[in-house]
Structures are given as C-alpha cells and as structure tokens.
C-alpha cells in the first residue's frame, strides 16, 4: 500500500541547500518549521543537533553512553518539549540529506538513529568529498565480519 507523501529535509552548507531547494524540496510556511538548515561558519553543533536529534530517542531513554557531554540545560529543554521541531521527530519527513562533514560533527546523534525512516543519507559537499570510511552505514557493515567469518 502506498504511504503518505513525505518531505525530503536537507542539512548542509549554503550551496548544498540552495541546490536542493532549486530542485524543489523546500517547505517554508508559518505553520511548520522549515525542512532545511543552512550550516554556516557560526552555526553551533548544538543548533545542528537540535535540528536533527529526535525528541523521542532521548525521552525513551535510548541515550548513548557518549551523550554525557550533552549540556544538562539542553536535556532539560528536551524533556520539557520546549525545543524546536527536530527532523527525526517529524513524521512528515522521509529522507534527511546531510553533508558528510556536518554529519561528522553530530556523529553520535546519527549513530543513535536506528529507525529506517527517516532515512539519513550522507552526501559530499563542494569542499569535502565523500569518504566511505566515515559513512555510518558502511562503518556498521565493516564491523560485522571478523577474519574468521570470512574464512
């Protein structure tokens, strides 16, 4: 059965976001938060995480061991639901496109994302070519086999 139409979100540098908006994916109106984030030099990691990280993952206790670096104030805001709408928590987003160099900044949030939808795709940018060794999916696949398994 066909599912509902879902948006494609993009988190990237200016050129990446402009390009995909030219492609027609952008949604911007007063009813909902935009489905894109332009990451500039002064954009903080918290802002990127805030846009990306799912409220549901944190509230259900699926907090990674590495998340102890998270600002307690940030966690309090998440619990009280005061944060802005995050892409992972929206059920109207099917795919999140993210430049790989930005994905590296929020790698812990990406690795914690286990659901198949929204699908998170790491894409290259003009300044940073794609590196398969850094991709979340391929890194998971790499660790699945030992030398013994392949004999």
């Amino acid at each position: 059965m066909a599912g509902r139409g879902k948006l494609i979100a993009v988190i990237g540098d200016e050129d990446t976001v402009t390009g995909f908006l030219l492609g027609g994916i952008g949604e911007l109106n007063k009813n909902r938060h935009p489905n894109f984030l332009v990451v500039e030099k002064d954009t903080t990691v918290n802002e990127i995480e805030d846009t990306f990280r799912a409220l549901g993952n944190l509230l259900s206790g699926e907090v990674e061991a590495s998340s102890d670096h998270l600002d307690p104030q940030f966690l309090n805001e998440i619990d009280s639901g005061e944060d802005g709408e995050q892409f992972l928590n929206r059920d109207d987003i099917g795919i999140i496109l993210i430049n790989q160099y930005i994905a590296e900044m929020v790698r812990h949030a990406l690795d914690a994302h286990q659901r198949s939808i929204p699908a998170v795709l790491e894409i290259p940018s003009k300044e940073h070519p794609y590196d398969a060794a850094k991709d979340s999916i391929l890194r998971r696949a790499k660790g699945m086999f030992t030398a013994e398994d392949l004999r």
Partner: protein
Amino acid sequence: MGAKSVGPLQYASRMEPQVCVCTNEAQNGLQKFRVLRSGSQIPEEVGPCEAALRRRKGLTRIPEPEPFSASPNPLNWFGILVPHSLRQAQASFQEGLQLAVDMASLQIQINWGQSQLRGLQEKLKQLGLGAA
C-alpha cells in the same frame, strides 16, 4: 551573477515543496521510496504534497492531479533572466534527488540485511555453544 546573488538571501519567504517521497512496501516487505512530484497522481495518498481534490460529476470523489503545478519555480527567486548554468544546476539537482531517493531505498535494504545477519550470527554462536 556573483557569489552573493545565489544564496539564502534570495530564498522565498514562503515555499511549497514540489518534490516529495512516498513509501511503498516492496515484495519483500521492506519500505521503498518513490519520488512524488507535484501534479502526479496517487489516489489514496494525502500528505504535505496532496493535490487539490475536485469532485467529478456523477462519480465518487477521487483526487485528481492538478493540470499544472501552482508552485512557482524556485529558479524565479534569483531573477527573471537567470544564467544557463543555474538552470543546468537545477536540472542536475533534480536528477540528484532521484538518485538520493534510490539510495535511501537501498540503505533500508542494507540495514535490513545487516539486522538479519546479526540475528543469524547470534543463532550460530548459540548453536556452537550448545554443541560444545
């Protein structure tokens, strides 16, 4: 046009998505993405990209595709006459979107394969321990 002529300062204050994705269940039960452009017909779907419903005379109401997309072309944000290179860039990104959607479907399959493999490896370990 100059580096500052094509950027976030030129974005429209209001945007309607012209491209969405819909999820279909493939034969193997996995979710598969498909590009949905505004104006294409998916009768049972409603969502951010729903087409306007129109009542047909004498028939049950079904959604019809709009004859022409009402959403303005994002290319118009950058002026009436834009360089050919910007049009080419738009076409490239539209092709790239189709590729990205295909990749997302493949990624779902990879994730499913990985989880199946993990399960089987666990079973194998348990069988190995049991035999021992």
